[in-house]
């Protein structure tokens, strides 16, 4: 028998309630040294609350929290840091105007006689940065780095505080495939060096690749644990939602109707040298795949008039249209569920009702008077069509979960009955339950004859939802794949430019 190593972190019976809500009902979790533990669960399952308790941002009401066999209770983030626990935030917190060394040591600069000891700081920063595979000069400005590298700087920063446990909350949600690969390499390397990682993600493919063990939460309780050999899609989804995967991408192929959108030599201001031609028919769900930065978002924004086209022809229902701003796009029957729902999709301080009715408010008004019953009805329809979970229509959208926010962004367009619905990363950072509602609605709308064009970086989503897909690479369409040609390999070849369009 080998020596029994006690777990690094052992949490049991942890309970946390907010007035009216029991967020955690006696959950337990344990973490060994040098282990990647994936924590998964739908939004609202209590993952974030537990992580905030571990990182000292919130405190538990009851339960045991043991580190190295010692009972602890953190009062603040510093307490957690002293015990070696660091949370890498979903939103990065670097100062873009400072260089890498200053960011790594922000607030903890080594000093000499009251002044910052620059040379020592640079030297040490270099070491931590190379641990995460960043071999660039330490005087590079943080703001000049792409987001994937900024995240690595965050990790280096945590390492510089002697972190033994890194908590990563949706770390890949805004990374490209390549950046994700780099991050995974770093994570595996850290694990090899005995650092433990708690990895929160909605992307099950990543969990399969990375995790040694999976802990699943549901409704503030432990739903189950999966050992290395048990980690697969079916098991994880079953534990998270308590039902089977079979109905997940429930697609029927519809007989496509007339061309709703047709672009001919359409030129976006961001890639003026690459004219784009594509079409979407009524009842068809068309995907646009590609790497982050391939120009997919820019294409949708140009179709929607946010950044008007600088050339080419756009036709809606066979009629030529000049779209100069979102207003004309909407009146031509186009809707966009944008990638950044907080910046472009919602007015966060406003209520579910005010957000749901924003596009249709004018149409339903008479002489400028708000039609309150129409507003109520529009909201009611969105909430019931997408099963939006909100205490009432007056709930401020800022306080809803990402999944419910995204449902509202989609729901507000239902009242406009667009001919063409465009969705940009429709399920980014949202839970499985919300994903399913969105997929179901896309399927239903296509069945009713709406043309749907969506951009996605999630391979499974494109494979699962698209009748047909275009793949973009560096601003141009590198290929088009019919339903029978759709495969992970075909998409990756086109997305990385290995294969030119056939």
């Amino acid at each position: 028998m080998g020596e029994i190593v006690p777990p690094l972190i052992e949490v049991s019976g942890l309970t946390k309630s907010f007035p009216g809500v029991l967020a955690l009902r006696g959950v337990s979790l344990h973490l060994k040294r040098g282990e990647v533990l994936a924590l998964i669960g739908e939004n609202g399952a209590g993952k974030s609350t537990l992580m905030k308790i571990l990182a000292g941002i919130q405190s538990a009401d009851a339960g045991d929290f043991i580190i190295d066999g010692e009972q602890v209770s953190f009062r603040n983030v510093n307490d957690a840091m002293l015990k070696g626990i660091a949370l890498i935030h979903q939103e990065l917190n670097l100062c873009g105007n400072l260089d890498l060394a200053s960011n790594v040591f922000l607030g903890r600069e080594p000093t000499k006689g009251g002044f910052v000891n620059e040379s020592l700081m640079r030297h040490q920063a270099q070491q931590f940065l190379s641990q995460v595979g960043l071999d660039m000069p330490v005087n590079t400005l943080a703001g000049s780095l792409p987001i994937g590298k900024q995240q690595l700087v965050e990790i280096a920063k945590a390492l510089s505080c002697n972190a033994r446990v890194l908590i990563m909350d949706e770390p890949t949600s805004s990374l490209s495939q390549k950046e994700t690969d780099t991050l995974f390499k770093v994570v595996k390397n850290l694990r090899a060096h005995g650092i433990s990682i708690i990895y929160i993600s909605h992307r099950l493919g990543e969990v399969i690749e990375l995790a040694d063990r999976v802990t699943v939460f549901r409704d503030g309780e432990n739903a189950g644990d999966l050992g290395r050999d048990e980690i697969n899609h079916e098991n994880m989804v079953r534990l998270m939602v308590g039902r089977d995967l079979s109905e997940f991408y429930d697609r029927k192929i519809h007989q496509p109707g007339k061309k709703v959108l047709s672009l001919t030599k359409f030129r976006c201001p961001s890639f003026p040298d690459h004219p784009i031609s594509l079409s979407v028919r009524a009842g068809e769900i068309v995907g646009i795949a590609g790497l982050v930065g391939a120009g997919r978002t820019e294409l949708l924004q140009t179709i929607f008039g946010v950044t008007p086209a600088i050339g080419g022809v756009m036709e809606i229902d066979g009629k030529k249209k000049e779209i100069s701003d979102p207003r004309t796009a909407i009146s031509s029957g186009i809707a966009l569920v944008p990638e950044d729902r907080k910046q472009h999709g919602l007015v966060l301080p406003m209520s579910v009702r005010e957000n749901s009715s924003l596009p249709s408010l004018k149409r339903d008004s008479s002489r400028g008077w708000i039609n309150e019953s129409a507003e109520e009805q529009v909201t009611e329809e969105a909430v019931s069509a997408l099963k939006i979970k909100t205490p009432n229509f007056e709930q401020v959208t800022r306080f809803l979960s990402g999944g419910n926010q995204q449902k509202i962004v989609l729901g507000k367009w239902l009242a406009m009955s667009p001919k063409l619905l465009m969705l940009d990363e429709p399920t980014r950072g949202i839970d499985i339950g919300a994903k399913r509602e969105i997929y179901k609605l896309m399927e239903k709308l296509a069945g009713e004859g709406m043309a749907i064009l969506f951009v996605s970086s999630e391979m499974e989503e494109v494979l699962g939802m698209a009748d047909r897909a275009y793949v973009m690479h560096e601003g141009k369409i590198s290929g088009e794949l019919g339903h029978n040609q759709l495969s992970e390999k075909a998409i990756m070849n086109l997305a990385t430019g290995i294969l030119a369009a056939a």
Partner: protein
Amino acid sequence: MKKNILGIFILLVAIFVITAIINPKFLNAYNMQNLIKWSSLYAVMSLGVAFVIITGGIDLSIGSVVGLVAVVLSICLKLEGMDPWSAIGIALILSLLIGLLHGILITKAKVQPFVVTLCGLLVYRSMGRWFTDNQSIGPMPMEEDAGYKNLEQIQHLDFVFSGKIAIGSFNLPTPAIFLLVLSIAAAIFLRRTIWGRYLFALGSNEDGTRYSGINTDRMKILAYVLCSFFAGMAGILFAFELDSVQPAQTGEFYELYAIAAAVLGGCSLRGGEGSVLGVVIAAAVIRLIYNSINMVGISTHLEFGILGLVILLGVIGDELIKKTVNRKQAVQTS
């Protein structure tokens, strides 16, 4: 009543009661009439700037617009052959054009609102002085001024804009009636029309509002037009109230009182928040503080200091209330 309005209302009542206890003369009819009159004049300007602040903008030119409109109105009334009501019309059209100019510069030329209206503050003040050669002028003849041929009609206007209506033994100053009408109209506009909704939406998230198909530029222009129009209304009221308009001084710093009242009344300079009732009460609080300082016998040198502290504490209190309300809401859905 919303919680943040309740706070400012309690402040109003508290200062009122304390002042009345310390100096019962505070409650006499003459003082009350004055207080209502000045509060109304300030509140009209404050309501105007509230529209702009709700969109996340700012208007620093209000005081100068008040001054310029008062000057132009007086010049027109003095002019031979001009119908006095047309003079009112010209003054209001001038204010609308100023607002339109601000809006266009901000939305089309993309100049920051602070800069546009700061330049406006300087330009309109100087225009008023230039038009009059910096000599004081009034809507009514002072001593033996030439002009003012339609004196009878002008006196009629004077009654409309700065008269008193007897209600029993109490004489209600007419500016209060203007305020009542304008504030009801503003409240209806903000809460019952699509344009009001759009102003709040774009103040909270301009991009998001544009992505929903709203012409945000046009809505912003509208906010600046309304702001200058309310300043123009205030300019007319002030002209008749003061009788003598000093081109260099009339309206000076009023933009700061207006902004202070809007902020104290619950508007956030970040945009997206504000209520008519809050702003009106806050304008009254500011005038009340002035009055109380005199009544209680505090040195008038302390006026600004006390005003500044009250506004600061009021806004801090407001933020605290918002924080707890937000926390409660966040907890409800987590």
